[in-house]
């Protein structure tokens, strides 16, 4: 593990990273995929209904199939946490909790995570009434008053699910109406008698002892609830772009249509990029292009070396 130099290291193993892995495998690049956990956020998707070849498939199963395909190509996924990325003498050094890896090219496919509210009590009461997964936890709030924070489709669908168990569901949203949700969903939540809207409201803190007892809004109003579901969208990992000096837009890595970033040898794909559509299919497409771009660059550099009679370093084509 230590000392070996890969042609390509892919950080992240969601659809973007895995597709990049499949392409890199078929280009016979000596490839490493490093990922905190295998699968990416799509694993948590209840159903995926817009990925060609499947009318409907669980995100978990789709992810497993991709991981299997990568495995068939002989590419290893190392479940390690990346701590530090830096460029050193024309190579990238990837320091993880286990060791240090070296590679010639890098694809960042770290995706994004559920955004946190960032208020007092949120972290402390996680698992004690604070939840980021309505499908997981709705059933534990039978006959309780519950708040859902957010105003997107995911907030509204979470509220509908929670309302199947809870006594009352408050949707707390900072804007004056649901700008970002599909009207079809809004019509359904409008009709649900258990759901009450609280617009122009922002949570200031979450209070409770052993479990959530109330929310204190920024205007001072208190809402007594036994649970809070936070559905305020997603956020990309900001640490890696910072370490590599990658150009970002609202935290998302800026790429061109070859998936190149502003730093030579570094490509990015999937939800972590500033792409306009964050879906499995677009992530896969970007992953494929990123692998091809890396492959082309490696080829060129290899030819360049031969021309200069520096000897053949060779792609890892065995």
């Amino acid at each position, binding site marked *: 593990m230590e000392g070996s130099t890969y042609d390509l290291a892919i950080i992240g193993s969601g659809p973007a990273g895995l597709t990049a892995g499949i392409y890199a495998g078929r280009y016979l690049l000596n490839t490493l995929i490093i990922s905190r*956990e295998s699968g990416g956020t799509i694993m*948590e998707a209840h159903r995926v209904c817009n990925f060609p070849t499947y009318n409907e498939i669980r995100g978990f199963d789709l992810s497993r199939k991709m991981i299997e395909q990568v495995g068939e190509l002989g590419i290893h996924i190392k479940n*390690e946490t990346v701590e530090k990325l830096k460029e050193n003498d024309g190579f990238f050094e990837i320091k993880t*909790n286990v060791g240090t890896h070296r590679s010639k090219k890098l694809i960042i496919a770290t995706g994004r995570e559920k955004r946190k509210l960032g208020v007092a009590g949120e972290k402390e009461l996680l*698992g*004690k009434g604070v939840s980021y*997964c309505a499908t997981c*936890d709705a059933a534990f709030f039978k006959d309780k008053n519950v708040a859902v924070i957010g105003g997107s489709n995911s907030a509204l669908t979470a509220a509908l699910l929670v309302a199947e168990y809870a006594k009352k569901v408050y949707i707390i949203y900072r804007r004056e109406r649901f700008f970002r949700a599909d009207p079809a969903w809004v019509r359904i939540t409008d009709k649900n008698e258990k759901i009450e809207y609280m617009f122009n409201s922002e949570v200031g803190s979450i209070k409770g002892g052993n*479990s959530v007892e109330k929310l204190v809004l920024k205007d001072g109003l208190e809402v007594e609830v036994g649970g809070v579901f936070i559905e305020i969208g997603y956020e990309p990992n900001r640490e890696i772009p910072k370490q590599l000096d990658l150009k970002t837009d609202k935290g998302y890595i800026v790429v061109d249509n070859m998936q190149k970033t502003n730093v030579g040898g570094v490509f990015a794909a999937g939800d972590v990029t500033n792409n306009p559509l964050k879906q499995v299919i677009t992530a896969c497409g970007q992953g494929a292009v990123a692998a091809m771009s890396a492959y082309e660059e490696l080829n060129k550099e290899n030819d360049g070396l031969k021309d200069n009679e520096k000897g053949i370093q060779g792609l890892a084509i065995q």
Partner: protein
Amino acid sequence: MTGSNRVASYYLENNKYMDIHIKMSDFMDEELQRIREMKMKEMIKNLRRDRMETVIEVNDESFQEKVIEQSKGVPVVVDFWAQWCMPCMMLGPTLDKLAKDYNEKFVLAKVNMESSRGLAQRYGIMSIPAVKMFKNGKVVDEFVGALPEPQIKDWIDRNLGDS
């Protein structure tokens, strides 16, 4: 002196040369039988040990014995999960792997929330996956959510270390 030598000298001493052949074969059968029994016992012991089961399923009824009581001898890590919870499905295989890797240093007990509502209430479960470490019948540490493997390992090491 081995058993067969012992019996041979007995027969020689008692001038029963003629019988030796027959009696020896009887004895050999006996000894074989004894070896067979010993092997059998060993196999059963190994089987039991394998089945001291590092990964078990428990419910409202078996929780007292399999978790509370068992945790007085070996730490028990309880995974509260459900089929409808995708992060639980992600976490499950990681915990299975760790249970195997740690080779009997702890027992992994899985509680399906669908069929064990009583336990959900008793332990105040409001978010799954919820993982709790039991020692001496009590919860000593816990975490919520599908943490990455390195973090879970740290959590286990930290908690096994204090025992």
